[in-house]
């Protein structure tokens, strides 16, 4: 299931939680883990000067410096590297999200693992020349499932046994379901299918009556049965629910109640407005809030 894992990291403490999960998974599933670090952002037109993302300093790039950074990354993860059998480390120069996407295209991993936010947006060197965060842009364009570990709580991970699949019944959600199904089969986990009925914004200015809510819930349950349950051969280790509320809050609550160790959701925000990419969609809010890793599926 996870033969090849691409762990894209800033090699700083913000990625420590993701690192724990990444190396743990690689060890558990005997995966090859590629540690990928975009070390510098090109600057100065055609010159050889790059902005080192860790130090924030401008450096003249040469092979020595590249090797040194690679060694630094290796040292940073030295203890974790000892535990995995197959690994490689690559450091490149470029705009981080673009280079991660380039690596995904080249390596064709089964899973990409990333940390959450690199911290203070204004100060972050990742902001240079591009709008929005690396994570969002990778999530939008990646054709490979992407696992994000944002909160420390999410990284205390003991392998997979309970997976929550959150759906909005879209086409992208179908792809996410197929992935979730494959995953629970391969790893023998429970699957909990969940839909949240959005009562926050869609009915502007009018509160839904309880009858309306309940009727919509029944309709969604029918949709879950029709769309998903039929495809599951052995439905004994499977449950499904529909709750009303603010979707991302409900999903996080649901995952907590089910003691989930993974949430799978679709990412299908079309044409992000570069001015307004700051954690707008439900999945992004789930990533920020969930107490377990979140896998985002695009295609």
């Amino acid at each position, binding site marked *: 299931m996870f033969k090849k894992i691409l762990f894209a990291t800033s090699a700083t403490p913000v990625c420590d939680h993701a690192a724990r999960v990444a190396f743990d998974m690689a060890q558990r599933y005997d995966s090859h883990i590629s540690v990928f670090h975009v070390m510098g952002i090109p600057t100065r037109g055609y*010159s050889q000067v790059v902005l080192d993302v860790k130090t924030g300093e401008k450096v003249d790039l040469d092979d020595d410096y590249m090797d040194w950074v690679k060694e630094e990354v290796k040292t940073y993860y030295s203890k974790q590297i000892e535990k995995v059998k197959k690994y490689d480390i690559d450091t490149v120069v470029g705009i981080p999200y673009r280079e991660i996407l380039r690596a995904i295209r080249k390596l064709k991993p089964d899973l990409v693992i990333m940390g959450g936010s690199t911290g203070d947006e204004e100060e972050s060197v990742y902001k240079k020349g591009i709008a929005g965060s690396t994570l969002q842009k990778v999530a939008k364009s990646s054709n490979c499932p992407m696992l994000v570990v944002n909160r420390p709580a999410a990284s205390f991970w003991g392998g997979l046994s309970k997976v929550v699949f959150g759906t909005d019944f879209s086409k992208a959600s179908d792809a996410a379901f197929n992935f979730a199904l494959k995953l629970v089969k391969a790893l023998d986990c429970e699957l909990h299918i969940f839909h949240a009925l959005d009562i926050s914004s869609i009915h502007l200015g009018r509160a839904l009556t309880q009858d309306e809510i309940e009727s919509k819930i029944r309709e969604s349950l029918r949709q879950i049965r029709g769309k998903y349950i039929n495809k599951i051969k052995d439905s004994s280790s499977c449950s499904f629910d529909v709750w009303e509320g603010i979707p991302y809050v409900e999903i996080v609550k649901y995952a907590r109640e089910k003691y989930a160790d993974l949430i799978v959701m679709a990412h299908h925000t079309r044409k992000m407005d570069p001015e307004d990419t700051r954690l707008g969609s439900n999945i992004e809010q789930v990533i920020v809030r969930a107490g377990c890793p979140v896998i985002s599926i695009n295609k």
Partner: protein
Amino acid sequence: MPEGTLCNKKPIDTEEDLKTLLQDTGGKTYYEEMKVLDVNSDLLWNTIKNTCKSRMKTWLEICAHCGMCANSCFLYLINDCDPKQVPAYKIQSTLGEIIKKKGKVDNDFMHMAMETAWAKCTCCNRCGMYCPHGIDMGIMFGYLRGLLYAQGFVPWELKIGAGMHRVYRAQMDVTDTDFTETFEWMVEEYEEDYPGLTVPIDKEGADIMYTVNAREVKHYPEDLAEAAILFHLAGENWTVPSSGWEQTSLSMFAGDWPACKMQVEHVYAAMERLKPKRMVGTECGHAHRATVIEGPYWAGRKDGKPPVESIHYVEWIAEALKTGKLKIDPAKRIKQPVTLQDSCNYIRNHGLKTATREIISYIVEPGYFVEMTPNKEHNYCCGGGGGFNGIGIFRSQRNKALITKRDQLLDTGAELVIAPCHNCWDAIRDLEEEYKIGIKWSFLKPLLISMVQVPEHLQPKE
């Protein structure tokens, strides 16, 4: 005749030499070697005898030393009106002296000439507009750079840049395969949002052959996707050549004349192979100058024109908006104070000021556009033109040069500056990094994508 192993009169022609030079971090050894590099006076004088024609000779001769050019030069103004920054002085004390001395100049002189040619002139050609005799110091500095390059006195990055063109026919180590694969990748990434989006490679007889800047392929491939999307939405019959796609020329900045010729002939060969009706180049200033304005002469084309009609991206956009091929959603027009950077290379030097302003009239809500002062053909260089942006040893001079643009921008009160030129875009980014004035900068493509109407038959179905 001491010649360095890295700093010498030999151009970079192999990948191996290129890599060796690149490994000399910051050009440390290169510049050390330059300190003892001999000047080949015979070569210098012979080159001048063969290439310095009547126009240049007349210009040097008729300069009345009136000083009218002084205030036209932003580098003179920003350097506290230092007399050594007067354009006439700068060229007379370098090219003028070399000719007077029949090429018998020494290493120190060449170092001074190198700094003058690359750190005291961006070849913006503004002085030429203000000279009562029409003497264009920018042109002469371009010529001087050629003389210096042939003697090995050229900034490290530009020796590399010219070498890139010689080895890869691109300003960066981007191969033809890298180019086509990256373009295809970008189309894949966006085809769901724009059904039917493709990149037609090597299509013969298309209406448009599109050429780019290798940096887009290397670092900002969205730019390729955006170009494809806009051609797609405009319903254009377009193509890109699998070879001959690089429009820029760092060899022009370096003064490597043979490389300039090689590069531009490579693009012209693509035009001749694919026979498009027109070529459209990306949002780059010097690329346009190299391929469309100066290139024909490098290639020895008698009519002074590229093999097919070649226009700048802003001309294509202006036309697409005017003819209604691209339609802007009025609700999405820019509604914040916005200004426009006039790129010297195609505004002053190719008269495209109307095209950019036509575009503005479509994409900016009336009342929000503020002109810089001065503007259009009188606008100042961004501060990083002519290769200035990328030269490490002249960084402090470049950063000072950015102050002119910084103050021009501040005076407009704009929050956004549209910069349809890679060099200007870079300079403004660096300016923001250096002086933090809170300005945003953008090419036209992403702005257009955010406001263009997608015809119904091209909208994604779900």
